[in-house]
């Protein structure tokens, strides 16, 4: 297609209705043509439009698209010039332009009060989160009582699918991370202990630290990143695709079908994962101790029994249950709050993972305070 430049000719002869000067436009006035003019055509047209007495003749224009029309319209100062001749098919676009010339309502800025407004919004959203979480918890309690009374309503399939996805499929990554942390911890603390001649206490140190603290927290962080994000994204996508609405219309409650199975599944899978991670971390520590300090694995296993009171084991399992419930609840909470657009989905998933990890660590700190005199030998 032959590209034709936008052209104009200014004539001093009376072009239209006795005007002193007239300008005739010709050629192609399209988006492609005007953006191809190297120096920009705006200034030239604006200079022409500066003369109010000028008569405009647009009948010679070969092709005028909306961009060309907007260019002229802006040069004319958002109104048609007093003297103008246009082909009828080009008239419509100027009519549309006249009609579209309304300012976009701007959202009122807060000005000097902006920080205060921001703080208010933040507090408001925090309160909103708290209420929503409380409601979710309440709904969960109601659903729990409901299925306890009607065992036929227990969503066994969903629970088992979730246990498989969040537990069984996470065995690999938790094993790897647990083992490596065990190796690192044993290696580093072994070096320190040796300077005091206290090598054999590595068993006590590792046993308590891993079973009581590190195993559950490590597993929880991994599960929050792995399964928590997946849960939030799944519920969020269901919102985007209106599947949540479809469930509501069919009378399938979100709480019982989406939230409850996830919470129950993580409450089951999480303590087992904690146990698994702790076990692998101890194995890692044992291997490193044997290699670095020549501490035999037989001695390691033998003394573990006396070094770590059994209460620590139960504490680790209990933490697992609590962490699992917290992660699932937070994932569902953020998932259900996602608005039907992609940006909200991304933000929701991020917020879900960050909040879950933060809450897990806060809960861990609470455990440490509450159970400070349980399972620790003098």
């Amino acid at each position, binding site marked *: 297609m032959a590209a034709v430049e936008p052209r104009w000719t200014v004539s001093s002869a009376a072009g239209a209705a006795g005007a002193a000067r007239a300008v005739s436009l010709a050629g192609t006035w399209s988006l*492609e043509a005007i953006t191809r003019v190297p120096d920009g055509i705006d200034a030239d047209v604006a200079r022409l439009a500066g003369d109010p007495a000028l008569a405009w003749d647009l009948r010679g224009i070969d092709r005028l*698209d*909306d961009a060309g029309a907007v260019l002229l319209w802006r040069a004319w100062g958002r109104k048609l010039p007093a003297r103008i001749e246009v082909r009828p098919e*080009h008239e419509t676009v100027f009519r549309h332009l006249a009609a*579209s010339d309304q*300012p976009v309502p701007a959202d009122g800025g807060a000005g000097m009060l902006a920080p205060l407004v921001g703080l208010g919004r933040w507090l408001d959203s925090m309160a909103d989160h708290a209420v929503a979480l409380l409601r979710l918890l309440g709904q969960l309690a109601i659903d729990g009582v409901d299925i306890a009374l009607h065992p036929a309503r227990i969503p066994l399939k969903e629970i088992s699918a979730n246990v498989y996805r969040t537990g069984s499929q996470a065995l690999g990554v938790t094993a790897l991370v647990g083992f490596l942390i065990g190796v690192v911890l044993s290696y580093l603390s072994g070096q320190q202990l040796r300077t005091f001649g206290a090598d054999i206490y590595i068993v006590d140190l590792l046993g308590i630290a891993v079973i009581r603290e590190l195993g559950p927290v490590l597993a929880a962080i991994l599960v929050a990143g792995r399964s928590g994000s997946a849960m939030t994204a799944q519920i969020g996508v269901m919102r985007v695709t209106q599947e949540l609405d479809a469930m509501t219309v069919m009378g399938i409650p979100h709480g019982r079908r989406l939230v409850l199975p996830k919470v129950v599944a993580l409450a089951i899978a999480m303590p087992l994962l904690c146990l698994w991670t702790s076990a692998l971390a101890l194995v890692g520590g044992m291997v490193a101790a044997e290699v670095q300090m020549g501490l035999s694995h037989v001695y390691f296993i033998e003394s573990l029994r006396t070094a770590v009171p059994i209460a620590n084991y139960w504490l680790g399992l209990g933490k697992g249950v609590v962490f699992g419930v917290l992660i699932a609840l937070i994932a569902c909470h953020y998932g259900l709050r996602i*608005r039907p*657009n*992609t940006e*909200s989905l991304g933000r929701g998933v991020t917020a879900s993972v960050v909040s879950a990890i933060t809450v897990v660590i806060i809960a861990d700190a609470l455990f440490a305070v509450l159970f400070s005199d349980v399972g620790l030998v003098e």
Partner: protein
Amino acid sequence: MSAPAAVVEIAGLSTRFGRQVVHRDIDLVVFQGEVLTLVGGSGSGKTTLLRQMLGLERPAAGTVKVFGTDLARATASGLESIRSRWGMLFQGGALFSALSVFDNVALPLRELKRLDEGMVHDLVMLKLQMVGIEPKHAGKMPSELSGGMVKRIAFARAIALDPELLFLDEPTAGLDPDRSEGFVQMVISLRAALRMTVVMVTHDLDTLVSLSDRVAILAHSRLVSVATLDETVALDDPFVHDFFRGARGRRALLARGGAVPPGGT
């Protein structure tokens, strides 16, 4: 008038999804300035053919040329120049949910990087006005809009660059009859002003009858016919009979005052 230039040329196109053959050896040419409508039963591969013309899917065999360039062999800059010359209206609108109405329509203009923001603003407001969206909706997000508004804004975005070639996938599905008619009028007036070529997939007989220059019928994985509406209606083909001879088809054709297929109850 000399023979119009071919805008889209499809030659020997075949499509397979696994073992299922969707298209078998299809040849189709879309000429400049015409409105070509693709019709066919559900699952006959209309939307797939449209997606192949857009380069979103690649056929198993055959070539698709747009503006004379083979999409499968085009260079990156060749594709870029083609993409600034066409527009597509997706069936569901496909508005960017994270952008406001204004930003959705402004996106293709801003991507050009050759227009200043004032010009972009005026152009966007003009396009929105043309599709009947009031300025007060410009700041809204797509999730706050009704289905019909999403469709009109998606259309405004499709025509943002004043494309020479416009693809429409079910443009009037989900619009009320009044809006459908308004949409048809809008396409007619845009065609006159911009000499636009339109390739459309539609089930809506009123839209088909009032816009189409030619109708292409896809059935049994082949292109059964490509002809003007009158010739198409006169065809002796089971699909044509079912499609045009129903009560709705006869009504739409009668309203236009053209040929009506014989028979029907």
